Structures are given as C-alpha cells and as structure tokens.
C-alpha cells in the first residue's frame, strides 16, 4: 500500500462517491417503481422530496468523479520513479493486474457521469421532471460500475509494492507486446490516419447537419462516441509519434509529461468533453417529445453539439499542426 496524499485522496473520493451513490440508488429504485406525477398522495410528495436529495447528491459528487480521473492520471504519472522499469504512468499502471482495468473503468464512469449530469440538468429545468425514470434507471445501472471501480482502485493501491519490477512504456506499447496495447501499436499508421480523419469528418459533418436541419442527431451521437476510442487508438498508432519525434515510441502516457508541455492533458480533455457532449446531444434528442421539454431540448442539444464539434475540431487542428511542424515523417510504403 502506498501512503501518499494523492492516493489517500483518490481512495477517499472513491469511497464517498460510491457510498453516496448507493444511498441515492436506494432511493432512486423507489422513485423508479412508484413515481406517479398525477398523484397527490403522501408517498408521491415524499418521493418528490427525495428526488431533490438525489439530484443534490449526484450533482455534487459526479463532478468529483471527473476530477478524480484527472488526479488518477496525475498520480500514476507522479508515482513512476518509485518502480524499477517504469518510465511513465504506463509502467505504474502495469505494476499489478488492477491498474489498467481501474483506469478503463474510471474513464467509462466519468463518461457516464458526464452524460447523467447533462440529463439531470435538462430534467430539472422542466416543471414536471419528464426524464426522472430514465435518469434514475441510468443511475441504478451505474452502481455496479462504481462499486467495481472502488474495488479495483483499492486492490490496485493496496497491491502496489515498490519492489515490483514493472515494464516500461517502450515494451508495453511495442509491436511485440501480445496485448491490446501491442495490437493498437501494430495498426498501420496510414490506415489509422485514414480512419481518424474520416471519423472526425463524419462526426463534425453530421454535427453541422444536425445543427442546421435538426436531423441525424442519433448518427452524430454514435459518431462522437466512436470517435473517442478511434482518437485514442490514433494517439497510440501515429499522433504520439509526431510529438515524440520517434517512429517507435507509441506510449499514450508520456504525453502527460513535462517534456511534452503536458499536452496530453489538453488532448485528452478535448476528447473527453467532445465525447460527453456529443453522446449527450444524441441522447437528449432521442427523448420522446414532451411539452415541458419542447424548448429546452433543441436549445441544449444545439449547445452540446457546438461544444462537441469545437472540441473535436481543436483536437484535429492540434494533430494536423503537430504533423506539419514535427521533423518526423512517417513512410507508409
């Protein structure tokens, strides 16, 4: 177990978020089953009071989940000098079997938390809370993931021992590695560039069409969701190489280091915000039309779409600039 302020803070946040989410989910299940806005019974009044409690709890705590993802990356990066063989966060996370699953689950939970907060924001703006069942069902479905994240985080930090010899990012993200990271590294750079730029064009193009005509919102949402993993695979396959100016260095974590001006935090933040807003724009557009949401859905959807397009375009712009100014030139033949 590593006794560090940052690891203790991460564990504390995980416990607080999971504990309060469990409480919220307990009440949410009751609301999901017995909610009847047409009734004036005491039970319904009690449920209405509880909705404000759950909204308060989750609105305070889910932003912490997003912040804790950033702190987790920062801590993994900061811990790497403690382990023989580790050169960056990639090595720290490989110290035991729980590191990478914890990171993956943190990303998934942070994405879900972002989408939930947007749905909640929309629901609280309507006088009759038309999305209440949906958002509480979503929250209840998130509980197992939050519990699993808490378990993985505890297992990871309690299993971190300084005498472990871990792998450096050079071997984890190499063509010879028999893992997913190795497969991503082995993807041909030319093919990945084509996939990346096509995906960005499709996402921003469908977003602009959605903004202008109000159609193809669902397609835009799916495209925004798919672009997120495609962009991360592209960072491993070719974008990182231009930043490192090395044709063999595929690590997605070294970008978080000072030597690269912490550019990784900016790139991942753009991708993350793009994915959350893009997915949410499609999700809220697919809600059945109700009177109370008739104004807010188009207004919020349009705002979210603009943010998603802006983030993905900025990410693409930074990539193109780096590909242009970097002395590295990749040969595809």
């Amino acid at each position, binding site marked *: 177990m590593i006794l*560090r302020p940052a690891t203790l803070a991460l564990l504390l946040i995980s416990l607080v978020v999971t504990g309060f989410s469990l409480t919220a989910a307990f009440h949410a299940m009751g609301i999901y089953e017995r909610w009847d806005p047409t009734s004036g019974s005491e039970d319904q009044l009690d449920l209405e009071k509880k909705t404000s409690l759950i909204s308060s709890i989750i609105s305070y705590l889910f932003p912490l989940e997003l912040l804790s993802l950033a*702190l987790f990356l920062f801590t993994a990066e900061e811990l790497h000098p403690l382990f023989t063989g580790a050169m960056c966060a990639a090595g720290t996370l490989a110290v035991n079997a729980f590191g990478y699953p914890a990171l993956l689950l943190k990303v998934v939970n942070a994405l879900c938390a972002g989408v939930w907060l947007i749905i909640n924001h929309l629901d609280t703006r309507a006088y009759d809370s038309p999305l209440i069942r949906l958002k509480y069902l979503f929250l209840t479905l998130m509980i197992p993931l939050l519990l699993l994240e808490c378990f993985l985080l505890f297992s990871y930090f309690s299993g971190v021992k300084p005498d472990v010899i871990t792998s450096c990012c050079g071997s984890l993200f190499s063509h010879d590695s028999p893992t997913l990271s190795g497969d991503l590294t082995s993807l041909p750079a030319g093919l990945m560039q084509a996939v990346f730029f096509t995906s960005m064009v499709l996402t921003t193009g469908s977003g602009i069409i959605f903004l202008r005509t109000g159609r193809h919102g669902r397609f835009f949402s799916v495209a925004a969701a798919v672009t997120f993993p495609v962009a991360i695979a592209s960072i491993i396959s070719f974008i990182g190489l231009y930043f490192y100016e090395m044709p063999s260095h595929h690590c997605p974590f070294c970008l978080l280091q000072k030597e690269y001006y912490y550019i990784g935090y900016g790139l991942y933040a753009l991708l993350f915000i793009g994915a959350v807003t893009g997915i949410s724009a499609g999700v809220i557009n697919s809600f059945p039309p109700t009177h109370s949401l008739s104004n807010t859905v188009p207004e919020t959807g349009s705002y979210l779409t603009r943010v998603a397009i802006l983030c993905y375009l900025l990410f693409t712009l930074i990539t193109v600039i780096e590909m242009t100014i970097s002395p590295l030139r990749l040969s595809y033949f």
Partner: protein
Amino acid sequence: MITTRERHRNILDFALSSLGRRAGRNLSLLTMYCLLIFVLASLLFFVSALKREAARLLEDAPDLVVQRLVAGRQDLIPENYGAGIAAIRGVAHVEPRLWGYYFDSWNGANYTVIASDKPTVKDGIAAIGSGVARSRKIHAGELFPLRSPGTEPLLLEVGAIFPGTSDLMAADLIILTPSDFHTLFNFPQGKFTDLAVTVTNRKELPMVAAKIAALYADSRPILKSEIQRTYQSIFDWRGGMILLVLLSAVLSFIIFAWDRATGLSAEERKEIGILKSIGWDTSDVLLLKFWEGCAISLPAFLCGVIAAYCHVFFFSAPFFSPVLKGWSILYPQFQLVPVVDISQLLVLFFFTVVPYITATIIPNWRTATMDPDAAMRS
C-alpha cells in the same frame, strides 16, 4: 424573464447577506475551516518541497556507487576492485573515495569527513562547513583539534568556511587531504570507503551494476535512481503517516460542519419558511445553500492555502519541520524553493472541501424540503 445567470447572482447576493446576518456563527466555521486547510496545505507543500530539494541535491551524486560487504556490513574496498571495474565495457571513470564520520565528544555532533585533492585544502589545512564552525565557535585561520587514534590529536588549520548558502550540503562537512584523512582515522593504505563509477551511457547502468555484482560477489552496487527512489518514498511515507493522523482533524471538522448545518436556529427556520411561502421552491433553497457553502469554502481555501504558503516557504514550516525533516545537532538551515502544482491543490480540495460538502449535503436537503408552515411554526 430572469436569466439563469441573474438567478444565480440574485441568490448569491441573498446568500452573502444571509451569512452576514449571522456573522459570528459563520466566522467560527470559517476559522475552523481555514485552520484545517492551513494545516493540510502546509503538510502537502512541505513534503513536496522536501522531495524536490532531495531530488535536486541528488542530481550531482555519482551514477553508481560500489561498496564492499563483509558479513553483511559495509567494509573497506581494496584499490584493485577499481581497476577491475574500470575494465568493464561502458564504464567511463572509477573514482575511489575516502570519507567517513567523526564523532565530536565535545558537542555530541557527527561530522562528515571527506578526503579531497582539490587545491582548497593542503596538508594541515582543512575546509569546514558553517555548521561545524558555529558549533565549535571557530573562525578561518584558527586551529581545529581532532582526536585521532594516535596519542597526539590532529591539529588542522581552518583554511576556509563554506558559506551558509551551501548549508544543506556542507553544514557538517570537513574536507581535508588524503594524508590527513589517513592520519585522523589510522586508515589503511590501499583501501577506500567506496568507489564512484561513471558510466558513458546511463541506459547501461543496470547492466554495468549487474556485471560488477557478477565480477565481485562481495560488492554492492547502488544506483543513483535507487537512492532517489528511497528518498522519495521516505518523504511520501512520512507525509502519508501525518496525513492519516490529521484525518482525525478532518473527521472532527466533518462533525462540526454537520452539527452546524443541522442545528438551524429558530430564526433560520423562520427565514426558510418565509422564503418558501413567498414562492421559493426547493431547488432555490438548495441553490442558496450551495452558494452559502461556496461563500465559506472559497475564502477559507484561499486564506488557508496562502497562510500555508507563507508558513512553509517564508518561515520554513516551524510546525512540521522536526517531524518531516528529522533532526540532529548540526541540522542545516535552508530555505525551501516555493513551487505549488495543480495536483497538490486538487488533493487539498479533496481532503477539505469534499468532506465539507458531504457533511452538509443531507442537512441542507432537509432544510430545503421543510414545509413552509412547519418551518415558521417551529
């Protein structure tokens, strides 16, 4: 139609005036909050500054140090080991080092004694650290007697005293010539304390260390990265232990904040009742409580962090230094380099503001969902 921004601004206005009406009560909360942040922030800043200082000092340490072990204890290393190690491919230079510790029974201090060929020292003339000069009350040009195993004490003239700015490195240091070193400790000729090895390509360090261990089974190669890692772990461990102890203070604060949020006065209940009866709904009252929380948390956070910054970087953290730095008779005096990064502030936020939020969230909801008539009657 009031826009969202105007709604927030109006409620913030009301929250500030509401806090002002109960200034005494809120000031006590603010003081406690500020104090908690100050203590935790001082700890985080101090640990991280010490780690940075240790890393900076170790930058100049040799890449690899080779010691000799006999029965698990460090022993003197023969000269021929140096020649054998220098022949390993990739080794650029091997420097045999003579150094040790001298216990001064006069003041109970331990000095670090290093032999050097540098022109600042000559036979009979030594250079000493400012800590040594201070504790023995001697000045440059005066004689400095050291007890040696022979019958006669070794009399050294103080050639130079290192300036106070190099205290962290040189406070307890005595530098003398190899021949004075041999006389002082009756040190055997042809043997050294250890060997400092420089390797041309740093990436080959582990391989060179493995070759040395294979060549001389009784040798112990120590990499600079291992020393750096040990220092980082020590400071982290000390910081983590104190933080665990301080978590009891965080817990006390949570109880205090909880009590403060649940124990509404009759006047406050009446106020909420009036607000709800004139049209405020639950979400408005929750927003009011949110802004009240922000209006307390933000100044407390800023004041606590600024006070901690001054405490650590201007006054060298008098509350924490004995525990975190360790202590000795000749402890160096040094000023820490002020650097604060975002992750420290984020950790601090998680340890202070988050407990406050969690402590007040349910009492605030109870307040916000009170029925207006019940609130006013109570």
